[in-house]
């Protein structure tokens, strides 16, 4: 059964529902003006916050993006991103998993299935947010489309958060557009050792504000107060749910384990050592907690605290064969 052809419509400046932010691009010069955009789904409240970054972001980067997406959505802020692999997709997913709305700005026509691995995500975004493109339905994704569509991402947002960006990442172009448009630019500080965060760290040196938690956006979105303790997922365990049937010892181990695991991935080997558990005992404990949605396994034998109450482990594709 093929799904019904989604409804798409064309918006022009001045139409009801035309995002006002897009008109700002005209101030930069006529060649940057957006004449019209195709929309699929329903445009949520705009402007929002753009969360952008590298396609090859690694588990940590994706985790950060997912978390920012979820934090924003829980404060009623729309997440805007570019629907690319890696950080973009993680931001969309984090927002959707927390029940929010998101806008994906594409670098190709709305009828083009690109990137292919995002077919399921595409349906979800169009049902609970909107896909936006200035290209006609069947325009193929071209290399030069992407830096160009970045100006739309920036224009639809009041702030841009760069999560993980290498030296030449396209996310930097989004940041430049944002700066030109007078939008706030923030960057998540990254390690200075690898090439992953070279771009985002350089943004920080050039005057971008660091993004440490969602309260850094309070200037532009007053509802972005500091995250509640339970949201940070860093503190010791909250009383577990559904653990009533567990023996005392297991419960104790579980709380010690949760205290060890934070938003930053931890190797399971170290957890086992710290708790003095054999491999089988640790596997059972982690399995139970994973089933409860408290922790999640990442590729590379890493364990990370799951976003509490999100239960999105089943939505996130694991990077394992």
């Amino acid at each position, binding site marked *: 059964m093929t799904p019904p052809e989604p409804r798409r419509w064309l918006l022009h400046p001045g139409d009801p529902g035309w995002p006002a932010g897009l008109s700002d691009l005209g101030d930069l010069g006529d060649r940057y003006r957006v004449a019209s955009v195709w929309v699929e789904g329903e445009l949520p409240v705009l402007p929002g916050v753009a969360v952008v970054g590298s396609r*090859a972001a690694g588990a940590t980067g994706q985790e950060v993006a997912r978390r920012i997406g979820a934090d924003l959505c829980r404060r009623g802020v729309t997440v805007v991103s570019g629907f690319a*692999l890696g950080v973009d997709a993680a931001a969309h997913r984090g927002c959707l998993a927390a029940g929010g709305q998101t806008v994906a700005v594409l670098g190709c026509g709305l009828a083009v299935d690109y990137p292919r691995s995002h077919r399921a995500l595409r349906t979800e975004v169009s049902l609970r947010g909107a896909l936006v493109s200035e290209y006609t339905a069947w325009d193929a994704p071209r290399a030069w489309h992407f830096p160009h569509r970045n100006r739309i991402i920036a224009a639809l947002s009041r702030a841009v958060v760069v999560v993980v960006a290498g030296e030449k990442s396209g996310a930097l172009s989004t940041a430049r557009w944002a700066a030109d448009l007078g939008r706030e630019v923030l960057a998540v500080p990254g390690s200075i050792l690898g090439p992953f965060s070279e771009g985002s760290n350089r943004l920080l040196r050039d005057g971008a504000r660091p993004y440490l938690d969602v309260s850094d956006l309070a200037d532009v979105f007053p509802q972005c107060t500091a995250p509640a303790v339970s949201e940070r997922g860093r503190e010791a365990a909250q009383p577990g749910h559904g653990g009533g049937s567990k023996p005392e010892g297991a419960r104790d181990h579980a709380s010690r384990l949760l205290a060890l695991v934070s938003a930053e991935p931890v*190797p399971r*080997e170290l957890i086992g050592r710290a708790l003095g558990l054999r491999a089988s005992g640790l*596997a059972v404990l982690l399995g139970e907690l994973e089933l409860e949605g408290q922790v999640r396994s990442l*590729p*590379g*034998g*890493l364990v990370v605290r799951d976003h509490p109450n999100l239960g999105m482990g089943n939505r996130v594709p694991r990077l394992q*064969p």
Partner: protein
Amino acid sequence: MVATAISCAVQGLSGVPVTVEVDVANGLPSFTIVGLTDRAIQEARERVRAAVRNAGFDFPPRRVTVNLAPAEVPKEGSGFDLAIAVALLRTERELPLDGVACIGELALDGGVRGVIGVLPMARRLSASGIRRLIVPAENAVEAALVEGIEVIGVESLAVAVAYLEGRLALEPVAAPPMGEVCAPGGVDLAAVRGQSLAKRALEIAAAGRHNLLMLGPPGAGKTMLARALAGLLPDLGADDALEVASLYSLRGRLSDRPATSVRPPFRAPHHSVSRAGLIGGGAGIAQPGEVSLAHRGVLFLDEICEFPRSHLEALRQPLEERRVAVARVRASVVFPAEFVLVAAANPCPCGRLGELSGPGCRCPEPMVARYRSRLSGPMRDRIDMVAEVPRLNGEALLSGSPEESTARVRERVAMAQARQLERVGTTGARANGLLDGEQLLDVCRLDARGRDALTMAGERWRLSARAYHRVLRVSRTIADLGGEERVSREAVIEAFQLRVPAL
């Protein structure tokens, strides 16, 4: 004038006793060999002629015809030389050959050289009533492993003839004691630091003969772990050990692994191996490939994504049927190939995916997906467990408690295997990893909490039916290792930690 001698042709692990008939007739001097022979046998004419002469006998200057009967069975290799020479000499002299067979290749100076496949030939000849076997001295030990047959090792044609004439007394070679424990390159589990998850996976793989995939960056210790798995498997029984030795004899590889060894073999072919080398085949005598050399042991495929796809597809038959059929021109031979497959792969093309330190991985997701898709669906279906083998930093390598030794884990494995055998009896699958369909559901009885866990986890991770079965099989083995009658919740949850994720 006609004389005969007995030898043997090999076909796979079995063979056919061959009667070598020699007719010496008047006419122009000639030497012809008939009987569906290959090139090596045609060349025997030159070897036999020279060897007979140089051993001090006369080669009749007459019309010599040799027939290898039965004539419709294809015959290959140089092992018929000795029988041809002996039959030829019998036309002139008294050589009693009652219940005696001869195997061996002749050198031009009359010496006798070793050949491949003597062990399977000896087993076949023993079964067909031969009581005494004359073989090259090199091959005497392997042949002596066969019960009910007297093995005489000879170094030259002259010695063989003297023995048969009764002029020289030779003692039959004593059967060497089985059980020489020899695992070249074996690794004790205690020598591998950390990697507790992977070690546990090895223990489960050994106990239930489950196929395992290890994912990890280069240098994380995947090869060491795979080697350690062979050590976790219990010793082979006498029949199994003889079968494995026969395969090595056919491949001419008894130098790698002594015929008397009772340790399960470990084979680690490189990904540049030819298809015939992996599956079996080759010119001349059909030779077992790596899959059969790993019979009853471990086949380790490092960098499995680098193996040509056709090789991996060819692995399907041995993985499913536990044997492999090698097609020959005139027939097809079957070799046993029941092994535990341990595959290793990098998590992504650069190998750094998921690393916390260092330069990190920059492989784009589609490239990672493409790399992983090289491990095709059918292969993936045959892998029961996936274990991550991350690279450990110095701290993790140096600290920690002393590791468990191979010997201790092997005891648990042996106990778990005994439980499996007791449960299924002689009719069922020998190990949980071989369970399928009805039998799987019948054997893997869960208790109530175990069933709950299976349902919950299955929904949460959206398991396919096949993935379900894999988790069931693995959880049954975990329960066996823990001595549980029914599969508990803990066993199910642990099995889920080792599940093969959907692509």
